[in-house]
């Protein structure tokens, strides 16, 4: 395995990560590394700890032990908003957007400027912001929905909006939790196309069950099972790993 290499070569180094909820180890001594511009997909059966791993990286859940280094900073010691400002973006499994605000305002809030109290108070909706919002809205197929309240969007549109909110944040590491779940077939195709466009030039960590989609985008696949790595490598290698077939793909 990769243990023993210099962590600083990687964008993200997760080492010995463990989290226990009342004695149950949802993630158990997990180590993995993500390169610059790498697209890594995490797969695994339900309850394998996939979402928990993302929660740990973005600071939503605190690790019991272990470390998560993003470049040279230890994310386990940072607050959520500091992790975002360091360049880690996260899309949640269920669309998580601001229902009471318009699509425009949702995107504007995610624009990485004026994040302090004073900054937010003096924030100006200038040409740069407007252009960027319109540009992203076009990418996420919501160009003509900008003035609409976000809770009136369809499920698929909400997912796109959240992807757009991430996009406008321009993170170096993008984490997506089941980005195509619950979408219609046509929405799925559009989303895949969208994701292909936004993953360029950054590292991406994706959780997904749709195997076709995984095969399509993954550079490397990590298979989790009961909070531990079962197998790791290219899609071909993982697909032919008897352990993986046993617990996951075979069923």
């Amino acid at each position: 395995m990769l243990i023993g290499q210099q962590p600083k070569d990687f964008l993200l180094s997760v080492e010995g990560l463990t989290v226990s909820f009342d004695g149950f180890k949802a993630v158990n001594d997990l180590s993995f590394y993500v390169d610059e511009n790498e697209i890594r997909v995490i797969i695994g059966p339900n309850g394998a700890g996939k979402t928990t791993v993302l929660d740990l990286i973005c600071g939503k859940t605190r690790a019991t032990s272990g470390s998560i280094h993003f470049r040279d900073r230890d994310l386990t010691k940072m607050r959520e908003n500091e992790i975002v400002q360091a360049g880690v973006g996260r899309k949640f499994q269920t669309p998580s957007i601001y229902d009471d605000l318009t699509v425009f305002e949702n995107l504007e809030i995610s624009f990485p400027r004026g994040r302090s109290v004073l900054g937010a108070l003096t924030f100006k909706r200038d040409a740069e912001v407007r252009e960027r919002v319109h540009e992203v809205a076009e990418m996420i197929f919501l160009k003509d929905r900008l003035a609409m309240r976000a809770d009136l969007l369809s499920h698929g549109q909400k997912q796109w909006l959240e992807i757009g909110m991430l996009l406008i944040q321009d993170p170096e590491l993008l984490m997506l939790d089941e980005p195509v779940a619950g979408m219609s077939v046509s929405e799925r195709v559009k989303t895949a196309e969208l994701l292909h466009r936004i993953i360029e030039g950054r590292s991406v960590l994706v959780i997904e069950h749709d195997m076709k989609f995984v095969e399509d985008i993954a550079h490397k696949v990590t298979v989790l099972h009961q909070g531990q790595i079962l197998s790791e490598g290219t899609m071909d290698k993982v697909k032919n790993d008897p352990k993986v077939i046993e617990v996951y793909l075979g069923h």
Partner: protein
Amino acid sequence: MIENTRFASRSELVGIAALALLLVVVLPLTLDVFRLNLVGKYLTYAFVALGLVLCWGYGGILSLGQGVFFGLGGYCMAMFLKLEASSPENTKIQSTPGIPDFMDWNQITELPLFWQPFHSLTFTIAAIILVPGVFAFIIGAAMFKRRVGGTYFAIITQAIAAILTILIVGQQGYTGGINGMTDLRTLKGWDIRPDHAKVVLYFVCVACLFGCIFVAQLIRHSKLGRILVAMRDKEDRVRFSGYSVANFKIFAFCVAAVFAAIGGAMFALQVGFMSPSFVGIVPSIEMVIYAAVGGRLSILGAVYGTLLVNFAKTSFSESFPELWLFGLGGLFIAVVLAFPNGVAGLWSDYVQPRLVRLVTPRKAGWSAPNAVAEGAPAE
């Protein structure tokens, strides 16, 4: 709505102008000085309701202890006025002339150290803003940084209101105890008691209120206002948009506290006394009801709600003093259950669309939903 102006939309400007017309022209012309002074007193509570709209309506932080800040502002003002009223000539019959009468009654022979700076009006005005502001900052930092929120926060603010009341009542020699600070007379030699002074103070109060409305509008239309709305709905998500939720909550809470304090100071000036009965749990909850009745998302609604409930209180409690509190409780329940957006919600849902249709009967494009969206854009 995307290219929103920075301060207010057109219908909001009309609303502010209408309120100004009512408070600056209609009421002073139609009411006698006694009633006008009463309205002025009600308006001091509107400052608190205004703060609650920002903090509770927009930010989702329910504080049941705004009386604390109203009281701190009021007491700061009252201390200055009391010192001026306690000149050695005015108090020469006391065993220690030159100190407030209640201190003399409590065998205090020297002005306490923390009273000394209140000889200065400049210091007093700064204290009216800073004391509640800093106190709110400390409470906010202690609570929000630890992610205490919702009901727990409401209960803690209520406890603080109770504690402050007990403290004021208990430290009679320093605070005037349960009677409060009475017999306030002059402001820099200008008598605040006669009718013409009351009229002037009414207008000062209205001017301060519009100042606060202006600040509230600026906040609401800034990105910070939208972050507050976002936070109320999905606090966690805001963190993952890169914002420190705690800092924004502290800010909203501090602004609400400063508004309340300005109201308290205007109260002491207009009513001529300050007592712990405006600090504790019951007045604090009443102030939340004003905001709820007015519509907790409406800045102007807060003012109307306060006036409405207080007029009702004055007229009902004169005829049915025992029933009033039940009436107030019933009103709160009714508003929360039936009209969660209060008077402002009724206005923008029912009255405004009809008015718009009446004014522009031919323009089919001006449909009702548009009007609603204009009237309450942040909803």
